[in-house]
């Protein structure tokens, strides 16, 4: 399989220079490596929300469910618990996953669902042309907040860590090799894998220079240490000036939802009829 095979024939409609190109490339390369390592691409399903990130559904040539704004995770949960052989990757946006559908993120992590969530965090609504999101910095001037937003952002890594996720990382759309490795490891991880991807929006929130001058790679020594992960997560609060760590932040082992709730083999028609007869007979 070649890289181009994973791109569809659909015309790409992102702005030139959009960070989504970098994320798409990293996803493609990760899927190629996974395919070579025994996770065939037909076993992968992407679930997208609504936003510029969601167009990945059309631009990739793999199984997909183009869902609703904010609702990738419950759809992915349904797909995966019905067939745990499928590797399900949610492709979500920050408005999508952190605003409209935040509760699903918390519960996905709480259950340690064995799925992967990639959040294209450009910290602005792109599709609806430039409003502030839950990770936009304080006083962000968008079209709904011309004088600057009056909310401080929340910190998705800290939130997901305390909710129970077992694989947490941060990527950057301009660091595709690192992002590719993160995505591959996230898919291979058994449990709830979450990657916040700092994604450049060239039109409404171009943070390229800021990110380039603040990023560094997290050390990878104490990945299972919850307290160390807290410190890493809190180093930058998405608001105030601070170094921005990239890479894998936390990884731990915990029973997954699917392991606690295995798929039973369905009854055969005769067995089903016998069960119904039994239920009926117990009542007369």
């Amino acid at each position, binding site marked *: 399989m070649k890289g181009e095979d994973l791109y569809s024939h659909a015309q790409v409609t992102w702005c030139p220079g959009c960070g989504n190109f970098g994320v798409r490339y990293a996803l493609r390369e990760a899927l190629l490596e996974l395919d070579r390592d025994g996770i065939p691409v037909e076993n992968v399903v992407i679930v997208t929300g609504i936003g510029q990130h969601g167009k990945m559904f059309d631009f990739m040539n793999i199984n997909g469910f183009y869902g609703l704004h904010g609702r990738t995770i419950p759809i992915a949960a349904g797909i995966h618990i019905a067939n745990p052989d499928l590797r399900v990757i949610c492709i979500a946006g920050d408005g999508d996953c952190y605003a409209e559908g935040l509760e699903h993120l918390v519960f996905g992590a709480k259950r340690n669902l064995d799925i992967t969530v990639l959040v294209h965090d450009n910290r602005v609504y792109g599709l609806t042309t430039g409003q502030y999101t839950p990770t936009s910095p304080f006083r962000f001037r968008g079209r709904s907040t011309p004088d600057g937003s009056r909310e401080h952002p929340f910190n998705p890594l800290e939130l997901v860590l305390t909710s129970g996720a077992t694989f947490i990382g941060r990527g950057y759309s301009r660091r595709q090799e690192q992002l590719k490795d993160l995505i591959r490891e996230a898919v291979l991880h058994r449990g709830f894998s979450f990657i916040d991807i700092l994604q450049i929006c060239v039109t409404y929130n171009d943070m390229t220079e800021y990110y380039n001058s603040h990023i560094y790679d997290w050390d990878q020594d104490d990945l299972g240490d919850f307290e160390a992960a807290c410190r890493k997560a809190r180093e930058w609060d998405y608001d105030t000036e601070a170094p921005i760590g990239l890479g894998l932040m936390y990884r731990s082992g915990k029973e997954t939802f699917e392991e606690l709730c295995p798929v039973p083999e369905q009854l055969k028609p005769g067995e089903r009829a016998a069960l119904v007869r039994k239920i*009926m007979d117990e009542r007369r």
Partner: protein
Amino acid sequence: MMESEVSVLVGGPAGAGISSAGQVVAQLLGRLGYRVHMYLDYPSRIKGGHNFAVIRGSGGQPGAIREKMDFLLALNQETVGLHRHNLAADGVIVYDAGEVKNTSGIAVAIREILAEEDAPAVMGNSAILGAFARAAGIGWNLFEDVLRLSIPKAVALNLAVARRAYDAAEEHERVPVLDRPVFPVFSGNEAIGIGLIEGELANYFSYPMSPTSNIMHFLAGLQEEAKIRVFQPESEIAVVLMALGCAYSGTRAAVGTSGGGYCLMTEAISLAGVAELPLMIVLGQRTGPSTGLATYTAQGDLYFALNGGHGEFPRLVAAPGDAEEARAWAVAGMDLSWKFQVPAILLADKVVCEGMFSLDPDKILKRRQETPSAESNSPYHRYALTGSGISPLRFPPVKGEVIRVNSHVHDTDGITTEDPELTRAMAEKRWKKERILEGEIEEMDPVNILGARESSTALLCWGSSKWACHEAGEKNGLRVVQPVVLSPFPEKGFARAMDGIDRIITVETNETGQLSRFIREFGYHPDDTILKYDGRPFTVEELDTRVKEAVS
């Protein structure tokens, strides 16, 4: 006691096990050959407040309660105060002697019995049941058998308590045994659960909400045996989307809720419509708007069931009038939603969901076949345009194929499009499915004719008003027409049922006459409406009076 008729009311404070006591009475009457209906009336609280259950056994087919009771079982003074006027002239009050004053009938020394047996207060209902069984001339062996099946724990102690009360009471009037086959008695919720299992349910998702929570509880108890999974997610939004995820993966799922939860589901119902994903929803109506009367009934959501979700797309809406119909259409809903890849809504209400009914185990609709699979169809097109509008289903993983479903307007491969021709073609594809679904519905007896069939006046009803209408129809010589399927509306079947009708009276438990408005769309103009909107169902006598007023 009227011939082949017996009515029992059991009342007490919330937490005293009134619902279970009612179920035991219902099972007892069922075992004596009666067809049974139970209505449960309780406020939305765990402890305190007045609860009562009315159980009616009949030689006919009861699906509504009568107002006169042959036996009034009172665990508190309130039961006697509120329901004394319901006692038939030859009826009897069986009461807790420690709680109820200034009455006559059969006194049961519950406090003393419980003290002597060292039994907890909640077993007072076993005592009153024992006394009732004796008063009704029911043999101990039958009573013991039913009690054993109905009581989940501390069986021996419950039996000891019941036996003492049984021995201390005297027979009032023997409830005659009817020479009919014994039918099992189920709540509508249980019957729906059975139907979902028969419809090959693999996963059931629900967020607790009256009056459908008991479907979840019933199925949860059957998970091992039925090899299903029951899961309670964080909200009705998650509930319905998990079901759609299962559909994409190729396994059958169903969800249950009431109006408030259905509100949250509507965005996903619309998604199921455009993405052409099977989806089975049980919508149990209760009194609205909003939180309304959380534990009481209404038929206020007909239009909401028909229209919930933005945009236009076909859907199945079936409104069963009792447990037997609820089971049958739960199976049919599962099958048809899969065959046609549309949302199916089983529109019940509190009376159907939490009420109990005898049902004929053999009465079930013919199974509907699924869409043929597309094994040999390569390359695969998820939304292939076919003559029927139904595209063959495949589920991932399929080597060499990409399977996409999409909430946007899409091409045959599921890729987003804004092309006007494709937009039109996909809309027409969806409506082709509806026409074929309607044809299939017409073959499934989607309209019931009850009451006096030869009459030229119709009592037109839907859902839980069915049996009250049937009795009023028989008594007053009126035909009863009950469309079970409301979408796609079986116009042919309805026209046949309405043949020769020159006067239409609609009967509904809502304020605005929703069915009455709905059938105007098909050219029928009701002359009168009989409406009730106090959260309670019609009793037989009440509807009879209202019908007489309307036809006089």
